[in-house]
């Protein structure tokens, strides 16, 4: 049987990365000096599993590295070593190195050997640091040998084995016959059974073992092979392995165990037929081939992604499919012999089918939902490291980690969240001195919270820092020409300015928040996910960033619109309202493009047929069509379309899979009649409209 271990690699890597996360969060929570035994145990188990798995699946470097960590953790667990801050830090760094090694192993790359070696040295240093060790009595683990050594240089020609199981041997699940058979598989063997110890029937315990054996192996096999057979039972029996020397050798020199002299009749000595088929030895070439296969497969599987699904979700799905099958067969029967009198039943059946299909769709979508903790789990480490670097005292609180959200959203929200949390630590929370001076506790708090609200997931990053500097932001915006010095803006409007490209209020560009990747990129990323971002801030008390995201990227609530013969979908979340306008609302300011007044605001008009180059369309006069007022990236505009068709949930399909990204379009969907409709990307469309307007000042209107 040839074996391809590569098939288990993906699961191994997944659980190893999970194990690393467990180790990391466990280490971060660890209180040096007063570590919780169960917490250490959990970290130890994770390391232990990674070590065992990596060894089994052939990643020896990972296994060896983890072994050192495991040893350290084991000593901590047993109380032989104190949990010091230094040890925890070294273990944390080792987790990082291990993550790199596993990533390299998964992707078929090479880990950074220098880093591994350096970290290894660090671990060894901690391990060697006996001061931290709790003194224990010398406990050298010496493997005791119970059998006689083979004497001199003379090679034996066979072995004589005395095997006397203790009475309880069978109660360990071992079986003397199995051991004898195994010995028989090593070499040609003869055996004699000694029943001398067998008690009278009345006093015989059927579950005990009373027999002993004298065995002879007639081939000069390696003694280690014999010892291996007895490995499991060496404490549960007496056994002696005595070499049988060639005739030229003086047998008197070898200690002969006394032949049991109580043996009475010949019939008591039961010769054993012990000739099981020899154990198959695997050809090493086979194994090498398997190794190579594994290497190839390992590289290929690195990129594929999988998802762990709660078994209950699968069960629900299976039940749902069962319902669907029942409905289908019911409809099938109805169709076989259909009469108009049964039309009501047909309608019922179809309604049921629709309901089941919808439920099935929802259940399938739920499979993609994973807890946001997958994204939150990195923050304890980040806050720990960063607060040290910044010289600030910061406590991270998290809540709602089990809130579920689509896997794709999780993958894409990670970086924006990191940026927001970093900002909060860097700019929001003050130094302990500043905080003390302001009469606040020295330790600042950052609260990361997730919750479901409506069809959205809301993530809040709230800190009790100094709040956003309104005046500074305003001054900067004036300096950048984003607003005029005499503009009157609400607080909210001022805070929104930090999302403008290139805006950064940090007095110095620190290596924490960095340069370049600004809040504009964060907002764009969140918008691309179909979400929105808002800021709340109170001077001196702190600020909060509220990120709102759709639960799933696979389905979208859309408004179907028509322009000429073409149908498009506008995401419902982007739509503020749809209106028919009259002349009084229109405002064609010279040099500012077409705008219309909506309550107090003047908003630009985007003529969809012009921007999308649609020749055939119904309405040229703005008053003949409909304006769909939309918002994206904080800007609003009115889309001029021919008609509104209806609202529906659509499944989002990629255009890029076979084509490429199209400006102003975020994807496509398939309508009920099987035709394709494109989904409009509102921010993208606004950019497109700006380009389309070219040098005309409509562009100005759009950015205002």
């Amino acid at each position: 049987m040839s074996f391809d271990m590569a098939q288990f690699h993906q699961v191994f890597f997944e659980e190893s990365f999970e194990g690393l996360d467990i180790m990391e969060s466990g280490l971060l929570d660890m209180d040096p000096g007063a570590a919780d035994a169960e917490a250490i145990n959990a970290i130890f188990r994770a390391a232990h599993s990674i070590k065992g798995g990596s060894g089994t699946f052939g990643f020896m470097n990972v296994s060896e590295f983890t072994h050192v960590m495991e040893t350290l953790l084991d000593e901590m667990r047993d109380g032989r070593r104190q949990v010091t801050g230094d040890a925890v830090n070294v273990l944390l760094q080792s987790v990082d190195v291990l993550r790199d090694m596993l990533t390299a192993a998964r992707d078929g790359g090479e880990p950074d050997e220098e880093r591994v070696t350096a970290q290894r040295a660090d671990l060894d240093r901690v391990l060697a640091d006996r001061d931290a060790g709790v003194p224990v009595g010398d406990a050298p683990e010496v493997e005791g040998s119970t059998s006689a050594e083979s004497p001199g240089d003379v090679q034996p020609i066979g072995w004589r084995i005395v095997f006397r199981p203790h009475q309880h041997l069978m109660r360990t699940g071992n079986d003397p016959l199995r051991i004898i058979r195994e010995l028989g598989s090593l070499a040609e063997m003869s055996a004699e059974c000694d029943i001398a110890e067998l008690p009278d029937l009345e006093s015989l315990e059927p579950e005990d073992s009373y027999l002993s054996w004298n065995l002879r192996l007639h081939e000069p096999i390696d003694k280690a092979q014999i010892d291996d057979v007895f490995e499991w039972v060496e404490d549960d029996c007496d056994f002696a392995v005595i070499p049988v020397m060639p005739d030229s050798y003086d047998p008197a020199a070898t200690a002969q165990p006394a032949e049991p002299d109580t043996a009475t009749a010949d019939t008591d000595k039961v010769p054993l037929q012990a000739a099981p088929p020899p154990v198959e030895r695997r050809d090493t070439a086979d194994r090498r081939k398997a190794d190579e296969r594994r290497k190839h497969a390992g590289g290929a599987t690195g990129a594929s992604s999988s998802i762990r699904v709660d078994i209950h979700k699968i069960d629900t799905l299976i039940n749902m499919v069962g319902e669907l099958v029942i409905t289908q067969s019911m409809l099938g029967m109805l169709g076989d012999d259909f009469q108009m009198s049964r039309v009501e039943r047909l309608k019922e059946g179809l309604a049921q089918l629709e309901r089941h299909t919808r439920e099935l769709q929802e259940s399938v979508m739920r499979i993609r939902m994973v807890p946001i903790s997958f994204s939150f789990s990195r923050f304890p480490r980040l806050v720990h490291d960063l607060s040290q670097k910044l010289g600030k005292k910061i406590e991270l609180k998290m809540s709602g980690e089990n809130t579920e959200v689509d896997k794709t959203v999780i993958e894409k929200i990670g970086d924006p969240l990191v940026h927001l949390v970093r900002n909060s630590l860097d700019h929001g929370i003050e130094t302990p001195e500043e905080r003390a001076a302001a009469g606040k506790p020295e330790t600042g708090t950052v609260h990361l919270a997730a919750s479901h609200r409506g069809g959205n997931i809301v993530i809040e990053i709230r800190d009790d820092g100094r709040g956003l500097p309104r005046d500074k932001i305003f001054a900067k915006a004036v300096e950048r020409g984003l607003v005029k010095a005499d503009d009157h803006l609400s607080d909210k409007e001022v805070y929104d300015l930090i999302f403008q490209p290139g805006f950064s209020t940090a007095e110095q560009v620190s290596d924490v928040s960095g340069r370049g990747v600004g809040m504009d990129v964060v907002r764009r990323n969140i918008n691309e996910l179909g979400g929105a971002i808002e800021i709340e801030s109170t001077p001196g008390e702190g600020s909060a960033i509220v990120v709102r995201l759709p639960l799933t990227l696979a389905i979208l609530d859309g408004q179907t619109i028509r322009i000429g013969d073409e149908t498009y979908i506008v995401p419902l979340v982007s739509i503020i309202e749809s209106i028919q306008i009259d002349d009084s609302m229109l405002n064609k300011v010279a040099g500012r493009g077409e705008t219309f007044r909506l309550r107090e605001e003047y908003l630009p008009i985007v003529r969809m047929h012009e921007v999308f180059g649609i020749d055939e369309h119904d309405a040229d006069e703005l008053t003949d069509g409909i304006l769909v007022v939309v918002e994206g990236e904080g800007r609003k505009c009115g889309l001029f379309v021919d008609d509104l068709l209806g609202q529906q949930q659509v499944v989002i399909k990629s255009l890029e899979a076979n084509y490429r990204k199209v400006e102003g379009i975020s994807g496509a969907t398939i309508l009920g009649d099987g035709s394709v409709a494109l989904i409009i990307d509102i921010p993208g469309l606004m950019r497109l409209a700006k380009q389309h307007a070219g040098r005309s000042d409509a562009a100005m209107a759009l950015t205002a």
Partner: protein
Amino acid sequence: MSQDNIVALQAVDDEDAGTQYLTFMLADEQYGLNILQVQEIRGWEQVTRIPNAPAYLRGVINLRGTIVPVLDLRRRFDMPVAEYTKETVVIVVHAADPAGGERSLGLVVDAVSDVLVAQDDDVASTPDFGANVPTENILGLVNADGHMVMLLDVGSLLETDRAVGGDA
């Protein structure tokens, strides 16, 4: 899109170990595509237009749940534009994407003609003779019963299609 206008390709016995090409007509010239890269042949049907795409990109269709772009080969190669008729077909081709996975593309051609088996030795390299089709899209030429068949390179069609910008 009814099932009738989808012609399933039957695997042709590969006796001579040569390469099989599906040949089709385009402005009275015969062209060929490696049959292994042909996914299916469909009748022309209404497509969904892509805004601001080049004129040869007719739009996208729903191919059993995936969105596949359809391009008009006449327009792609700057040949005279023709009305679509009953004979007009869309050949859906697919090839490995250098970026991973596989990409599909529909090609509008005048009509499908035949399946041609050519030994690799029979394929002549492309002469620089100022044909309509850019040389990077041509695999080579093969002589079939006295007339030339130009073999197209599906991979390069997919590539250039992706690279050419629509919003330029």
